[in-house]
């Protein structure tokens, strides 16, 4: 993985929290004084289409929000696999939501980490927590990001929701920790 600029693509269905993950990742990097750029895909047919977030985290200045090939691809739905296929390069590492994506849909030669994200979220937390769970699973692949800043970014992003229901805060942090444990060997 390119140490200087890590290119992350997150793709899934609307409602799976793709943009939430993207925003929190980017904000974590900003809080930590790393360079970062985030953009979401948008367009008229985007409602009901696949939701995609482009995030870059770097030591050097970033100016262009998209990239040709991702260093790290996170796919949460079957449609997302097809939609993001062009961003998969030889070195792209993939985190896949095995709850919804069959292994044989994924490229054979890339490093793949499967996480049963949707099912775990539904069973152990709440369906919408899937985004934070997946966020946790991403962290082992981004050693440059310090957890304290990720937690601060979660706080920033979900502040209004936490104010309404204070118990959500702990639930989300628990989901983050759980997500981290889902990855056994990120460097493979």
């Amino acid at each position, binding site marked *: 993985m390119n140490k200087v600029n890590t290119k992350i693509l997150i793709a899934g269905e609307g409602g799976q929290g793709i943009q939430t993950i993207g925003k929190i990742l980017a904000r974590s990097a900003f809080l930590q004084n790393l360079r970062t*750029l985030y*953009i979401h895909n948008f367009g008229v047919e985007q409602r009901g289409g696949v939701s995609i977030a482009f995030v870059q985290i770097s030591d050097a200045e970033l100016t*262009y929000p998209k990239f040709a090939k991702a260093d790290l691809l996170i796919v949460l739905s079957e449609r997302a696999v097809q939609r993001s296929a062009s961003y998969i390069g030889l070195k792209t590492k993939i985190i896949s939501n095995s709850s919804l994506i069959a292994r044989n849909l994924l490229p054979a030669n890339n490093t793949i980490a499967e996480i049963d994200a949707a099912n775990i979220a539904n069973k152990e937390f709440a369906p919408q927590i899937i985004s934070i769970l997946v966020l946790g699973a991403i962290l082992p692949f981004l050693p440059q990001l310090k957890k304290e800043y990720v937690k601060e970014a979660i706080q920033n992003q979900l502040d209004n929701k936490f104010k309404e229901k204070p118990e959500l805060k702990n639930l989300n942090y628990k989901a983050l920790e759980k997500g981290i444990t889902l990855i056994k060997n990120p460097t493979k």
Partner: protein
Amino acid sequence: MKEFLIGNQIIVKAALSAGAEMMFGYPITPTTEIMSEWAKVSGKKENDKIKFLQAEDEMAAGFGMIGAVLGGKKAFTATSGPGTILMQDPLAMAEAMRLPTVSFIMQRGGPSTGTVIYSQQELVLICHGGNGEGMRIVYAPATLQELYDLGIKAFNAAWQFRFPTFILGDGYLSKMQGEAEIWDPQDKGLELTPATAYLGDPKNPDLIGKLQPAGSFIVKNNWVNLRNCFNLEEEIFQVNNEIKKAFDAVAKKITEHEAYQCETAEKIIFAYGIVAAAVKQALQEGEIKNVGLFRPITLNPFSTETARKIARKAKKIYVLESSLGQFASLVRDNLYGLTVPIYEHGKPGMGFAPAEIEKMLK
């Protein structure tokens, strides 16, 4: 203070820092958040000087902006694509009467409704739209930081030099989120050009005579009558030449560009806006030494002299843009007479990723 913002939010901050008091707009992707962010500011009780109008269409937005400017307030609008087309109606009037309007144009796919996402296909419309001679100041930011810096500069340039002024960006700049230093002009000792009224009070009627083309105004005591319609061929001939003369006189003061790695380069890439940012990133990341980047910061007026000086020494020139030749035409126009071969590479509606550019050059 470094803040983590999307481009549209940065535009609002730049306008406020520059002393803008009014925004006129119409909902259109990708600029719509500029309105909603401005509305949040103008809606606060303590901001009673800050005003906002969501007009019934872009023409009303543009003409409302003109009214506010005539009344001596710094006003701006923002639009894209089909909105940019409609905006040419008011912009032509602003051009004819040298009105200091400021417009943020965040380009999207064209022609027609196109896509709501990204492109660089409104360059001709902005540099030379309407039925005039392109007497417009056009800045093209390449990064979020430049969006802020040039955003402030646009208001100063408009009110100092009295030409419709533009920030020509794109949908990616509008929607991408990153950091920008939101600096206060006061802290940097940057003087903001004050706005002055053409109609109403307080006004300086003598100023009108110095600014407006002959025949377009009557000043009597404190009353000012303004028009943009003339009766005779000779009158309009004179008006056009007067405006051009005034524009050429300020061109040298305004013209800006960036020349990266051009001194020893065999190949020069001409690009503007976010495409240029991607080129620079490609040259840096790929450690490509024999290629330079010429990036106009003002598309109009263009840094013709410097561009020619640099291009003359090169063996090959590339023009990269998200269009099928709008920028290339401008480049060829300015490099006319040079024999260096020019290769155009245009991708309307799509951007160039740095890795893609690296591959092209290797």
